[in-house]
């Protein structure tokens, strides 16, 4: 099972100090956070993509390319790549290039974004959100699998004898996850292709996540990619930890109360009860996270949101230390122990798989 972090890339004022990082500070902080993720033994770093303030990550492959050069093992991913407003040809080119630079340590997650105006900014119509996601991904899928593409669709100029370069590393396209909070069409899309399905899971009750994942698993089996249990599922999570629960609650509360998205709404207590947000000791985080499999089945990827709501870099890095040292090693062992044979790992590039196998075989790594 893979563990990692995903970032929204928000520039948010620290409500406890009134300090707002500059864009430069936020971008540099993102890099420090990614490097820390590798240092503490996490598997995945994923960045969001946004094209409006207060967010900085408008150019994910630039950032991920830099991180690729500074890391050895970390899988670089997105959360999410806007399949609706980006040209699928450019996605094919950018991520194939990144795949070469990172020696295969790349996958990506398709999403439709959370900002209505982003559609008109890129000349698209939000009412066509789902059709855009479906048509654009169909083209991307083809561009990575066929050397010469003839294509015609509703939303993009036709292509004749087009070749997207560079070709995917070793002819293996990056693995794709499809992220959606509430659209069954996207679960269906992921199932159709046999791709992964990622449920953000951090803002909504687990009951809802359970239904979305169950639908994806059922349809995955329907399309003949394997049994429902073998479908590739990823979940988000959101935690804040201190040795003592009360300290975690006290420290995180002002960030929660003022957080973008859910701030100034429900109480921290209500929200932690209603959604998977966990604020407490590492042990509480372990127990809550392990409970996710009871709702969605054994799954392949768990990403945590750690660096939002104005939390200072120093705090985020401390959180990553706790996550990497105290939480993930236990989760790895427990999830592996509970997982039945026949449930696969998330697909990784063959070069990455080989490196991992070699590392596991090396007694020093054990």
């Amino acid at each position, binding site marked *: 099972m893979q563990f990692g972090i995903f970032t929204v890339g928000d520039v948010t004022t620290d409500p406890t100090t009134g300090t707002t990082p500059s864009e430069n500070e936020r971008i540099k902080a993102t890099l420090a956070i990614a490097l820390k993720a590798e240092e503490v033994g996490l598997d995945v770093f994923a960045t969001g993509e946004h094209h409006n303030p207060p967010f900085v990550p408008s150019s994910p492959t630039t950032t991920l390319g830099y991180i690729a050069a500074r890391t050895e093992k970390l899988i670089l991913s997105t959360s999410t790549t806007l399949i609706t407003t980006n040209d699928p040809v450019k996605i094919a080119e950018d991520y194939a290039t990144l795949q070469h630079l990172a020696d295969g340590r790349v996958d990506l997650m398709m999403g439709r974004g959370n900002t209505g105006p982003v559609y008109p900014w890129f000349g698209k119509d939000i009412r066509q959100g789902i059709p855009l996601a479906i048509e654009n991904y169909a083209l991307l899928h083809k561009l990575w699998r066929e050397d010469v593409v003839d294509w015609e669709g509703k939303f993009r100029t036709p292509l004749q004898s087009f070749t997207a370069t560079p070709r995917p590393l070793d002819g293996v396209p990056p693995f794709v996850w499809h992220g959606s909070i509430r659209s069954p069409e996207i679960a269906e899309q992921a199932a159709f292709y046999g791709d992964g399905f990622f449920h953000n899971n951090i803002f909504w009750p687990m009951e809802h996540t359970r239904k979305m994942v169950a639908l994806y698993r059922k349809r995955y089996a329907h399309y003949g990619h394997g049994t429902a249990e073998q479908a590739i599922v990823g979940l988000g999570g959101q935690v804040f930890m201190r040795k003592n629960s009360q300290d975690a609650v006290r420290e995180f509360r002002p960030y929660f109360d003022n957080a973008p998205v859910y701030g100034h709404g429900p109480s921290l207590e*209500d929200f932690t009860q209603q959604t998977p947000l966990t604020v407490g000791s590492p042990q509480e985080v372990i127990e809550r996270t392990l409970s996710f499999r009871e709702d969605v089945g054994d799954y392949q990827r768990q990403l945590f949101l750690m660096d939002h709501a104005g939390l200072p870099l120093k705090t985020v890095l401390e959180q990553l230390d706790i996550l990497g040292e105290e939480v993930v090693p236990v989760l790895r062992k427990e999830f592996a122990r509970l997982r039945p044979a026949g449930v696969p790992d998330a697909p990784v590039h063959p070069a990455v798989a080989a490196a991992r196998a070699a590392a596991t075989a090396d007694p020093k790594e054990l």
Partner: protein
Amino acid sequence: MTATAPLKIVAVAAGLSSPSSTRLLADRLAEAAREQLADGQDRRVEVQVVELRDLAVDIANHLVTGFPPAGLKKALDAVTGADGLIAVTPVFTASYSGLFKSFFDLVDNTALTGKPVVIAATGGTPRHSLVLEHALRPLFAYLRAVVLPTSVYAASEDWGSHGDEYTEGLPARIRRAGGELASAVTGRTVSGASRNLTLDDGEDAVVPFAQQLADLRVG
């Protein structure tokens, strides 16, 4: 749904005070519908009144987070699962109250399609009675609900007066609205409202003179 399942009438009341005339109107409309349903067919009738005041914080939280807390979820499920709906709001600043609108903003925009709805409102003065026609009726028309012809407006003075020579009193309007809802819920095509009888109805068209005289006496 089987024939033995109860018919569900749900009334949404957006009043803020306690006791609330909005709640009172909702209760009376629900009772009128229940009585006429009980007369007209043999399925059990269940009445539930949802008071939005109790859900005010849940409604605000749902607007912020995008999902309903458990109590609000139950209320939304009751409304969307009802056979007939009664929606009652106080008039605030020349329209439905913000709480009333926020609640219906959280109902899926196809969940009320085809659902019979009685609209009603309360106010301090009768001058705002057309709120029902220019605010509530379009709202439910947008939701593709079947808004029944009789809407009920209760100004403060209506609770203590009879109709006059031109209009019926509040109790008669409540009965008529309840009848329309009962008819719509059971799929009867004839409106529960009584039409004016004409010469085509023969003797029935004539109100006996003694009764006409009696009706003129102040009761």
